[in-house]
């Protein structure tokens, strides 16, 4: 079993470079922030390194950070430009009994990051969900398509904070 600090230290030594790996201890849970382009390599390392052995993914979730510039229009709706979308990875080692939370932040205008679906198969459907509801594109995913919304849904990503519901979908009125 390793503590957060020990895991952070191991990762910092393995992935050297400015801002590649950062520890955040200000939230309810300790988070390691990873540069998006490194997430696949970090994941491969975390699962294969015997001292860490993160063999299980509990959860992968997408978040709209809502930290861009808000433009409010007359009807009260708003659009957000700039800022980031984040992906959280909750990992666990079933043999060594330790847990870890990773985070990556990708720009809202081009939310692209490497897929970890081939590292933990749990991530397959979770990445599809994050893609479906927030529009985060996971490169290298074996089958990245919508999972909850209809395949022909063309009105954007519902969990983005500036999402607007359409008036009609396939001839059905959507608002109450």
């Amino acid at each position, binding site marked *: 079993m390793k503590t957060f600090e020990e895991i952070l230290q191991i990762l910092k030594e393995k992935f050297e470079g400015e801002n590649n790996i950062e520890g955040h201890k200000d939230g309810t849970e300790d988070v390691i922030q990873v540069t998006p382009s490194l997430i696949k390599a970090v994941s491969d390392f975390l699962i294969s390194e015997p001292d860490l052995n993160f063999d299980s993914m509990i959860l992968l979730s997408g978040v709209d950070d809502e930290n861009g510039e808000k433009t409010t229009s007359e009807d009260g709706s708003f659009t957000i430009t700039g800022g980031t979308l984040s992906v959280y990875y909750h990992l666990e080692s079933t043999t060594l009994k330790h847990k870890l939370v990773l985070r990556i932040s990708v720009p809202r205008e081009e939310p692209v990051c490497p897929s970890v679906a081939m590292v933990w198969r749990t991530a397959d459907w979770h990445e599809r969900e994050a893609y479906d509801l927030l529009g985060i594109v996971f490169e290298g995913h074996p089958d990245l398509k919508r999972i*909850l*919304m*209809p395949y022909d849904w063309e009105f954007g990503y*519902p969990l983005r904070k500036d*999402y607007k*519901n359409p008036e009609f*979908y*396939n001839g*059905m*009125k*959507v*608002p*109450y």
Partner: protein
Amino acid sequence: MGILDKEFLQDNIVVTNLDAMLRWARVASVWQTTFGLACCAIEMMATSASHYDFDRFGLIPRPSPRQSDLIIISGTVTLKMATRIKRIYEQMPDPKYVISMGSCSNCGGPYWEHGYHVLKGVDRVIPVDVYVPGCPPRPEALLEGLLKLKEKIGNESLIKSA
């Protein structure tokens, strides 16, 4: 129904008119499509199980919409499901009836405002005969709705023009 009010002329022979007989038969056997959507479906299954037993009213779940007279929309109708529900409804032979069970399928329920994925009432895609309120409705409420539907069927005539 009045079918037994008629005169018994001989043993085992009941004299009645065709209209009353058809009505009696239709009211007593409302076959239902096996179809459940969400938590209301659990309550619907409880209603069909031995404790509440809606088989005693002639409701039998059928495995195909083509053999059914009734569909109970038991749960949240998502936009994705709405097109499927419409297709199932269209596969049912006439005369067919719809019971909308629970707040979600009545009007969107708790998803009425922020449910980006929910159809705000199944009556936006198919016609509804009986609305059963509740979240989810108790089996007694569903039975009440069923009896209301039977009342409606009993007042219809396949022979006389309305």
